[in-house]
């Protein structure tokens, strides 16, 4: 059943009313640039579902009402849709213009929308096609490399992975730099919970003038998600499906058993150190020439799939859309997965000429078991000399394995005389370790809009988001945590969020002559409560995950916690948009915010902003030059605030702490934290200059933005000298600036009948700098803040190579020996020290990128399409967690290492330090440039020709093949230069091979 009977009935009834009397119109559709025939264009009567398709010659015949004017809408993929008014003509010639991000596109700007040509601020937009192009599990992933100035960074390779987003650098230093997310009016939504296929567009507000409407909450930028809506016409059904296989790839090179032996015995002895010992089991493997690849043994290819069915349509006054989706991304470590079930529905209805109501709802359920935290790290750490299966042990009694015996056939301690790392395959087995998060997120928005007078409307909307988050953590006996001897332990915790926003909005639109005025006034109240609960027990008698904690008995309850937090925000806002002659545009915004979590005297703040735009391209003196097809100049200035501290930060709370006087309970409450009664708003001001341009009939188009943002009264969880008895306090500590440039360039390189090629390139550079710190100090070393440097810097000794044998005497004066990491004695006093007055540490660099480039190419050849995306990030410095963890630590003899060219007395390299030699400054060698170029994905698609589709009664059908993450280029040692993985709580990198299908009817 493709069509709902009811809908059909309704449509028939509706159509029969319209087509009382008809006449025939014939016409032809051509490309306005090349004059080529445009086949398969759809021609519909506006406000009506009735339509026809142009044939292979671009010709069509359509019947329209015989009386009155009719508007025909002509649409074709790759072209801007065009409306033609039919008066008395009977034949039409329609020339379609290629689609070039048409200037009439609407951009959502918060509590309203404007046409792109009327935009005064810096806003980046991503369309539905871009969002689903790469089949992301998480919408955030789709934003990477698409909008200049928006840096999206992966946090992990686990299924259902989290991404972080920074818009225009780090505007704050207290850690939270995530932008505000607004999903269909639900403020503070969660991107990861949304099915990407349900999204119509993403609009990203970047400059302060644009975000000012969100006041305090928009300080880090705003991401507005607009879900797909129905449109009046017949019910349309779409089916989007993909199925892919994730194959582990790009893995770091780990030592083999023989390499491990060489580095820990032979070369250590060569370097005059003390070699390590091996068990008989290990020696047997080493001598046989064998080796165990734990990562390979642990991981396997897995499934990545997504399926969304949607129905949308509408009748006079009412439109609707419903969808259901299922996404599954399995991890490469067995028994880890991310499953997302989503239901989305929305109705908008115009009840009569003064009342409009609408409702939209999302229900998302995510199930995310990620298994053992230790699984991957154990696989990286376990010695390659270890034995997987118990039966392969030469002598289980020589080590700790014999006491346990085979577990599921595995040797738990791998035949190694060490009991720190368990066999990764044992660790990862769900019988031993389970960790799972399930989230139910119910979001809804309802509004009513009434027209009070002509041009004056009042809109009231209520948004609610209820998130129920449940987390279970079970660690059985055969896990690192339980050391293979203790009974299992488990923790179960829940967090419930209830978030409400109540908005009341007055809008007034007025136009007279060349003037257009639009005024918005808003009152908003926001309330967020979080309740959480957790219980932890140990010594469970049998494996029951977290489903029977009572069996541990009351004496084995190790923690019970519950908590409550509330914060509220109250706001008043006004905005005026004034346009003169469609060329001169002005936006003024003001917003006052009151935040509960700030101190009583500092709760309220006011944030003004303004923007001007000049469509200079529409002025005759520019038009005459015939250079520009579009040119707009913009300038904006605005202030926004940030009150991003936890509730109760201004209060000195008490902390429960227990003692026993002999056997008598002593229940103590100590001062828990230092309240800051002076805590106030962090405030940013930003100047943005922008140019939108188009040349050659917009074959080349784009935008350049230049901005300068200063944030003062930065809120920081400031480190305190601990002689105060406290470690941190929330404080306003200084001023930071972000200056940057963003360039977006879209080109239509080739636009022929059979072949087209477009490129979209974006470039963003941001310079982050601490301008000033509180009390006039030049640095807060404990927080790594230095005036004149960016935030997120590393402050440490600078690497100067490896001490070589020829420098032995000099090395000795520094208390070091050949093979040790040499660092720069900055002040040349002959001592390496971090003491006051003779500190040799310096700012080494920042984790913030220097610049990023994203590039997407799309080609169409007849029915085939090809697209690929590349992403380049320059200048990120990481203290490489894989190196500073045990995997790069050649002073650690217990665990395996990644293959590095280390120093020996016969190999005087500067690549890596020597084995068997004391390394007091080894951290200096672990800082690495994590610049990388990634080919993010390559997609080849085929769209079934219209002729065939008609036969099958389909509107649209496309099949495609996609390759995700096929290659990256970097000098960084690790799993993935994009994020600094320690392999703890992580999965391996991968390539995904995907087959996909899109059908519409």
């Amino acid at each position, binding site marked *: 059943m493709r069509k709902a009977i009811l809908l059909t009935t309704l449509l028939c009834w509706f159509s029969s009313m319209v087509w009382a009397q008809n006449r025939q119109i014939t016409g032809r559709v051509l490309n306005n640039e090349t004059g080529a025939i445009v086949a398969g264009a759809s021609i519909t009567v506006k406000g009506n579902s009735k339509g026809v398709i142009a044939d292979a010659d671009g010709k069509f015949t359509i019947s329209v009402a015989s009386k009155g004017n009719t508007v025909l809408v002509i649409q074709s993929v790759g072209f801007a849709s065009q409306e033609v008014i039919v008066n008395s003509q009977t034949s039409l010639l329609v020339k379609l213009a290629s689609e070039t991000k048409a200037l009439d596109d609407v951009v959502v700007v918060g509590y309203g929308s404007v046409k792109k040509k009327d935009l005064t601020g810096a806003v980046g937009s991503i369309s539905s096609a871009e969002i689903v192009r790469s089949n992301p599990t998480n919408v955030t992933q789709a934003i990477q490399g698409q909008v200049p100035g928006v840096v999206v960074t992966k946090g992990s390779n686990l299924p259902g992975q989290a991404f972080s987003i920074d818009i225009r650098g780090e505007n704050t230093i207290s850690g939270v730099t995530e932008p505000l997310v607004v999903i269909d009016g639900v403020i503070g939504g969660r991107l990861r919970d949304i099915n990407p296929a349900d999204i119509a567009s993403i609009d990203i507000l970047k400059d302060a003038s644009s975000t000012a409407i969100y006041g305090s909450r928009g300080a880090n930028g705003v991401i507005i998600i607009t879900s797909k809506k129905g449109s009046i016409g017949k019910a349309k059904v779409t089916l989007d499906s993909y199925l892919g296989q994730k194959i582990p790839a790009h893995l770091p090179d780990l030592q083999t058993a023989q390499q491990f032996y060489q580095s820990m*015995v032979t070369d250590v002895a060569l370097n*005059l*150190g003390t*070699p*390590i*010992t091996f068990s*008989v089991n290990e*020696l047997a493997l080493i001598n046989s020439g064998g080796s165990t690849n734990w990562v390979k043994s642990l991981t396997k290819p897995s499934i990545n799939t997504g399926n969304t069915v949607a129905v949308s349509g509408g009748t006079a006054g009412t439109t609707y859309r419903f969808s259901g989706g299922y996404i599954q991304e399995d991890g490469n470590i067995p028994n880890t997965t991310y499953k997302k079930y989503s239901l989305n529905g929305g109705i908008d209805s115009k009840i009569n000429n003064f009342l409009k109501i609408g409702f939209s709802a999302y229900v998302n359920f995510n199930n995310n078991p990620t298994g053992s935290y230790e699984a991957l790290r154990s696989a990286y750490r376990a010695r390659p000399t270890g034995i997987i299966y118990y039966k392969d042990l030469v002598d289980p*009694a020589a080590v*700790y394995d*014999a*006491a346990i015996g085979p577990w599921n056939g595995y040797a738990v301690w791998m035949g190694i*005389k060490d009991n720190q790392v368990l066999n990764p395959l044992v660790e990862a087995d769900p019988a031993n370790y389970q960790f799972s998060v399930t989230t139910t997120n119910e979001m809804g928005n309802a509004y009513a809009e009434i027209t*009070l007078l002509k041009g004056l409307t009042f809109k009231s909307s209520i948004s609610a988001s209820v998130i129920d988050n449940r987390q279970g953590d079970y660690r059985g006996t055969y896990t690192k945590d*339980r050391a*293979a*001897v*203790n009974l299992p332990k488990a923790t179960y915790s829940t967090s419930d969020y209830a978030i409400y926003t*109540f908005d009341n909005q007055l809008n007034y639109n007025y136009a007279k002559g060349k003037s257009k005025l639009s005024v918005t006034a808003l*009152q908003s109240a926001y309330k967020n409560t979080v309740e959480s609960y957790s219980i932890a027990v140990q010594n469970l008698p049998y494996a029951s995950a977290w489903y029977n904690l009572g069996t541990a008995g009351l004496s084995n*309850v*190790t923690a019970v916690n519950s908590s409550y*937090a509330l914060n509220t925000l*109250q706001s008043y806002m006004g905005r005026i948009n004034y346009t003169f002659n469609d060329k001169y545009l002005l936006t003024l915004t003001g917003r006052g915010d009151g935040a*509960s979590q700030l101190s009583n005297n500092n*709760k309220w703040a006011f944030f003004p902003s303004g923007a001007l735009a000049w469509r200079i391209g529409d002025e005759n003196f520019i038009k005459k030059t015939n250079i520009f097809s579009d040119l707009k100049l913009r300038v904006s200035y605005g202030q926004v605030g940030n009150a991003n501290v936890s*509730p*109760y930060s201004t209060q*000195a709370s*008490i*902390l429960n*702490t*227990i*003692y*026993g006087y*002999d*056997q008598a309970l002593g229940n*103590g409450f*100590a*001062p*828990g934290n*230092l309240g*800051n009664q002076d805590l106030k708003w962090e405030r940013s001001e930003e100047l943005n200059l922008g140019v939108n341009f188009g040349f050659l009939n917009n074959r080349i188009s784009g935008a350049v933005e230049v901005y300068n943002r200063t944030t003062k009264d930065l809120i920081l969880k400031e*480190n305190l*000298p*601990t*002689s105060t*008895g*406290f470690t941190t306090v929330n*404080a306003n500590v200084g001023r930071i600036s972000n200056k940057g440039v963003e360039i977006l360039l879209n080109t239509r390189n080739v636009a022929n009948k059979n072949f087209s090629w477009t490129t979209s390139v974006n470039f963003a550079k941001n310079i982050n700098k601490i301008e000033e710190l509180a*009390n006039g*100090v030049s640095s807060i*070393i404990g927080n790594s803040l230095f005036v004149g440097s960016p935030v997120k810097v590393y402050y440490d000794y600078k690497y100067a190579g490896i001490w070589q044998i020829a420098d032995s005497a000099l090395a000795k004066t520094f*208390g070091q020996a050949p093979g040790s990491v040499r660092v720069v004695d900055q002040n040349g006093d002959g001592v390496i*020290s*971090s*003491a*006051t*007055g003779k500190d040799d540490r310096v700012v080494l660099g920042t984790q913030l990128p220097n610049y990023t480039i994203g590039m997407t190419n799309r080609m169409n050849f007849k029915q085939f399409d090809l697209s690929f995306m590349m992403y380049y990030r320059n200048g990120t410095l990481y203290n490489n967690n894989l190196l500073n963890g045990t995997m790069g630590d050649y*002073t650690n003899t217990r665990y395996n290492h990644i293959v590095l060219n280390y120093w020996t007395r016969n190999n005087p390299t500067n690549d890596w330090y020597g084995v068997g030699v004391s390394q007091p400054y080894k951290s200096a060698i672990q800082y690495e440039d994590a610049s990388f170029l990634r080919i993010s994905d390559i997609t080849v698609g085929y769209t079934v020709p219209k002729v065939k589709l008609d036969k099958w009664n389909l509107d649209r059908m496309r099949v495609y093949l996609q390759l995700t993450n096929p290659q990256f280029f970097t000098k960084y040692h690790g799993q993935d230069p994009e994020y600094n993985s320690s392999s703890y709580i992580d999965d391996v990198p991968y390539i995904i091979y995907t087959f996909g299908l899109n059908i519409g009817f």
Partner: protein
Amino acid sequence: MNIFKNFRKASIGIALICIVGAGCSKNFLNEINPSNRTTDTYYNDATGYESLVTSCYPLLRDIAQQRILSYGGTDVFAQAGWGGIYFNQPNQLGSQYDQYDIRLNASLGDLQTLWDFLYREINRCNAAVVRAPGVIGMTDSLKTVRVAEAKFLRSLCYFWAVQQWGDIPMPLVETTTASLEVVKTPAKDVYTQIIKDLTECVAKLPAKQIQVGRGTQGAAKFLLARVYLTRGWNFNNSLGGTPADFTSSLQLCDQIIASGLYPLEANWNNLWPLHNTNPNKETATAASSVAVANASKEIIFAVQYANASSYNGDPSVGTTTIGNDLHGRFGGGPSGVAQQARTSAYNRVNGGVTTTWATYRLFDPVMDTRYAGTFNSVCYATTAGTVSLATNKPYPQAVTLTYAAGDTTGIANPWNAPATTAAQRGVDIPGGTKKYSVINTNEYQGLGYISVGNAIVDNLAWGQPMFWKFFQPGILYGDGYSTFNDPLFRSAEVYLMAAEAIVKGGTGAVLGTADVYYNKILDRALGTANAGKSPMRATNPELVDDPISNIVSYRATPANITIDMILDESARELLGEGNQRWYDLKRTGTLLTRAAKYNPWVAYGLTGTPLVAAKHYLRPIPQGMLDNSNPRISQNPGY
């Protein structure tokens, strides 16, 4: 539009405006926090204030468990084994605390952790001191006692801190507003403050508290005696000490002894958890094993560890169950043979420090009951098992041994009774006959088995005697911690402090000369059978291969008693207790001499010459204190 329509619109508008009004409630921005209270609203009555004073005690556990700064690099403990040093291998990689090399610097996490705990505790005590006057509903006499408890605990922390770091910040009021400015107070002023506070505590604290574990007059006197003793030595002439301090210390020691509240146990072993040499024959439970020890009257002040683990939590350090970790901090676990995996039969040895070889040689293993009380020299199989010696190096022997539970698996001979014939040895040695490892002192920690450049496998070898003084049977292996109360002060040490004060010129001793005090402790250790006899130690404890005939008595006489002799005795009597050893060496100015003499790592340094130097009498101020203070405070000299 007709009037009716407009009216309808207006009414909807009015209704909405009412809703808007509701959202603007005046209290909307008030912070509501049902889950917590603030310091100002909670500490103002008796219940709240009592909870504040109680909160000053739990951190003692965390502070006491920062042990490395008082054990590492001393004469009796080192952090790593000493095989490589014994064989004179180059490029030795041991601990910075022992080698005293450049790694012993301000960045060490142990320094920061101890510092942070001490000052967190000081701030809690300060809160208890300054908030007392404002508390309602509590008698003045009780308040006085509680304030004195807080001052006692604060003095304890300042005393630890001033010994470690010298000039230190000395806040005496609760921190209620943040400041990055830090002022260092000279060490001598810190001592003045400590003595002032403790003198007050001696006057105001009761001799006994209803709740065991709280500060008492005796505890305050003990601490004050130690503070006077320390100031008397007057480190670097910087503490404002005078010879009169030794007399003050001695007077307090005599008072404690005369009070009769803290009599010495007749049997030294009653001070420790009951435990059987052979775990297969263990009869004590976790609770019963510590019943006697925890109730001992000899203990003047101990950190409390209740039996119910839920009483042991301190969420401020991110843990919910902390027991006493003392049992696992000293090297020398059971032999791996037929022990298998991780066993609670012998307590988990969690690393930390290991006894130097000289320490064993300070004891008379036969006559002195403290040798067997401190070290367990026999190891038994706890499960059945087999061991194959097929590929042993450097002594390959193709033998497979089978064990039943309870079979002996290792014996560590005392230094003065080594195995001398091959037949007395284990089968892993050529000619050996015993099916267990038999090792002599100069083979402890694998000294006899090291072979440069070869992977070594000796499944039978056992490292050294177990340091089992604090072992508590029946506790869980992993996160199961002991419920043995950590004794910080006990009266045996009072006698040794008195002896030291007399040697340094203290006058007016009640019991007699220094040797009288000293021999009280020694005779108790020798037991009724041997009291009065002369126990013999190695003349040169630092020479592990010295002939066993080279011995000397350690009974004190008025003529022979010295500070070194007292330090030797405190090593035997108090080994591993109270986190005290480093402070003892620092107080007496013997760190450089004794550590370099007895600790092979200190002697070795990085390349064969000791690196320990005068600057090491003070620790570096933790880097975080330098980095987080503004203006940055200065570092101690030499770092």
